[in-house]
């Protein structure tokens, strides 16, 4: 029934109780991708992150820095300023800020006020991206490593991707855990599905070294056999079945592990590694999230086979994104959901993610309670 005062479903969660900024309000304490490394020059680079304005630049040693965008003095946007001697200089009164957000120089003043500081976010640079820590002053765990790009770049042949959506951070991450959607949305008719949530970090050693904290880690193992009908009877389904296993075997396997703001993937066909992916999330703000990262196939030693795998994987990856993004864009998250048998992993991932949302402490000065709790 449609009532004049809204549907009952909405009455149980009135519009005012739903955070105005789902991305801003439900962000876990974690590392998030901000920008591709080569795109960040000397700076400053203005962008939106976590629902607010931030500025990124490189200090004298070339390390990426990130602070909240507004000058504590008169509120000018520091992104309009300049980087001078590795410090960010406000355009308005030439106050200068170091990478830690503390004011280092005020023209005409010998004693700098102690409160002259802007919020700074810890940053790291790795895997081709600048990563920014959200949730506390000091990172609670180290940025996970991804050896496929850092120590063994020659072994893989890949591409970077960047997809904008209006979904939430959690939605983008839980997609890999939601294995039922592989068959429903992506049309893989899978048989003999084996899905389990991993218990130990050592089980995901193929993705890279373990995270510095066990409780910041979540991993799954998925394995399934795409149905492959006779070519003549159902050519389209046959092609789907062949392409999804790279014509290398019958069983596709996926090892996913990650932290509350990103994931690492390794895919195998019948135990042979095919590709690796790293995914980071750029939580820009209200209904503006990007999934970015790198994806590459493992070189096989024969260039034509590597090229074929690359093309098949690129098509798979892009086609999959093309199907996922409209769902992300239009799903209503602020509604009661239903869990069925196969949603067990999803439920566990959500608990894991929400526990890191709870760990995010916000700087009251910077947030004014606007970005939610």
């Amino acid at each position, binding site marked *: 029934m449609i009532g004049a005062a809204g549907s009952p479903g909405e009455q149980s969660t009135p519009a005012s109780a739903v955070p105005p900024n789902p991305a801003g309000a439900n962000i876990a304490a974690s590392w998030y991708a901000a920008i591709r490394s080569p795109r960040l020059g000397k700076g400053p680079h203005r962008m939106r992150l976590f629902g607010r304005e931030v500025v990124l630049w490189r200090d004298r040693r070339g390390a990426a820095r990130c602070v909240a965008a507004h000058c504590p003095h008169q509120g000018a946007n520091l992104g309009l300023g300049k980087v001078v001697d590795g410090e960010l200089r406000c355009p308005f009164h030439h106050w200068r800020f170091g990478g830690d957000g503390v004011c280092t120089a005020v023209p005409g003043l010998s004693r700098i006020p102690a409160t002259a500081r802007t919020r700074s976010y810890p940053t790291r640079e790795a895997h081709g991206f600048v990563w920014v820590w959200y949730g506390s002053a000091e990172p609670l765990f180290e940025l996970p490593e991804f050896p496929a790009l850092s120590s063994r770049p020659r072994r893989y042949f890949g591409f970077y991707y960047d997809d904008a959506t209006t979904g939430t951070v959690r939605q983008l991450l839980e997609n890999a855990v939601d294995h039922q959607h592989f068959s429903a949305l992506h049309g893989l008719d899978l048989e003999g599905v084996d899905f389990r949530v991993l218990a130990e970090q050592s089980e995901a050693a193929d993705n890279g070294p373990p995270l510095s904290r066990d409780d910041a880690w979540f991993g799954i193992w998925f394995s399934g056999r795409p149905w492959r009908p006779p070519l003549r009877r159902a050519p389209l389904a046959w092609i789907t079945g062949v392409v999804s296993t790279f014509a290398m075997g019958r069983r596709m396997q996926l090892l996913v592990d990650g932290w509350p703001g990103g994931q690492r993937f390794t895919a195998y066909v019948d135990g042979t590694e095919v590709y690796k992916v790293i995914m980071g999330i750029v939580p820009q703000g209200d209904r503006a999230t990007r999934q970015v990262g790198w994806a590459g196939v493992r070189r096989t030693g024969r260039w034509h086979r590597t090229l074929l795998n690359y093309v098949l994987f690129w098509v798979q990856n892009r086609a999959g994104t093309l199907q996922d993004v409209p769902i992300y864009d239009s799903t*209503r998250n602020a509604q009661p959901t239903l869990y069925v048998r196969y949603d067990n992993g999803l439920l566990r991932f959500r608990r894991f993610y929400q526990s890191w949302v709870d760990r995010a402490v916000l700087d009251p000065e910077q947030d004014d309670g606007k970005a939610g709790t």
Partner: protein
Amino acid sequence: MSFAPVRGRPPRDLEPPRGLARGWYVAERSARVGRRPRSAAVAGVEVVVWRAGDGAAVVMDRFCPHQGAALELGRVVDGTLRCAFHHFRFDGEGACAAAPGVRRLPRGAAARVHPSWEGLGYVWTWVGSAVPEYPPPDFPHLGRGSPAHRRYRFAFDTSATARRVLENGFDLPHFPVVHGIAGDLRLTWDAEENGHTIGARITTDSVALPAPLDRLPGPGRLCLHLRSTPSYQVLTFELNDRPVAHELLAVAPVAAGATTLHGWTVMPRAGGLLGSAPAFWAYRLQHWWGTRADLRIYRDAEETGGSINTSDDEGVLRFRRFHRRWAVRETVREAVRETECGDGARTIDEGTE
């Protein structure tokens, strides 16, 4: 590199319109509901309109009860609406017919379906209570058996409430001011036929035409016969007791501050000047012009209870009293709220805390 040009429409945070009456409202035009489901909004509730196996239109909540995916991205398969995300299937009653990989469907795996009726080129839905309390519009002039006629369909967007749109015809003093129909207007009420219809005739013997036409001889006795329910109305324009045009005026209350007027005008192809094509086009032009004048007023009007009323306002006041009798009942909403909050098992829902 972004390769995702297809966008899903994000959920809209719609505010339900205030002061809506229980009734049949337009959800979507019939022709726009084809093989693919289509999203729409009725009274602040987002719905998906689709056709079940027998071709009957179904008006259902837009989001899948499972994980909240928008159902218009799905497809109709074997007469059931299949969600794109996990292939949950819903039949025309909203019950979950199948879900892959699930042997026992959980309690509550059902989408809400709203009462609907399809006819007159629209999919109508009943708003305000669980069971329709009066029949959908009867407008025989469009039917196959009706005599030869010319007709057109109209649709106008406005920010006014449904009530303001419907009460406009009963508003006697606005005719000379907004529409320039100077003349001696009289309002006579019809005898009440049933509880959901209010009828009135607005008559004038000597209509003085507006400026460029005022030299012509007056056309004669003009009568506007209104029969209105709280949600739609049927109007008949009569000239010297001969019906010139029949109009069906329906409302699609999308949300607070967003209403669409829908409807049909049918002009019988009678002999003589009145049934001619020029008369049809002249009528159509004045209808468009007159609606435009009304919409200009609606656009910036404030919703008032009508604190200062004159004897001329009798028509509007009586319509409002009638409309208020059909207001969505508070008790119904309360009852629904209680039953809805009963079932728990709502754990980690993003954004609800």
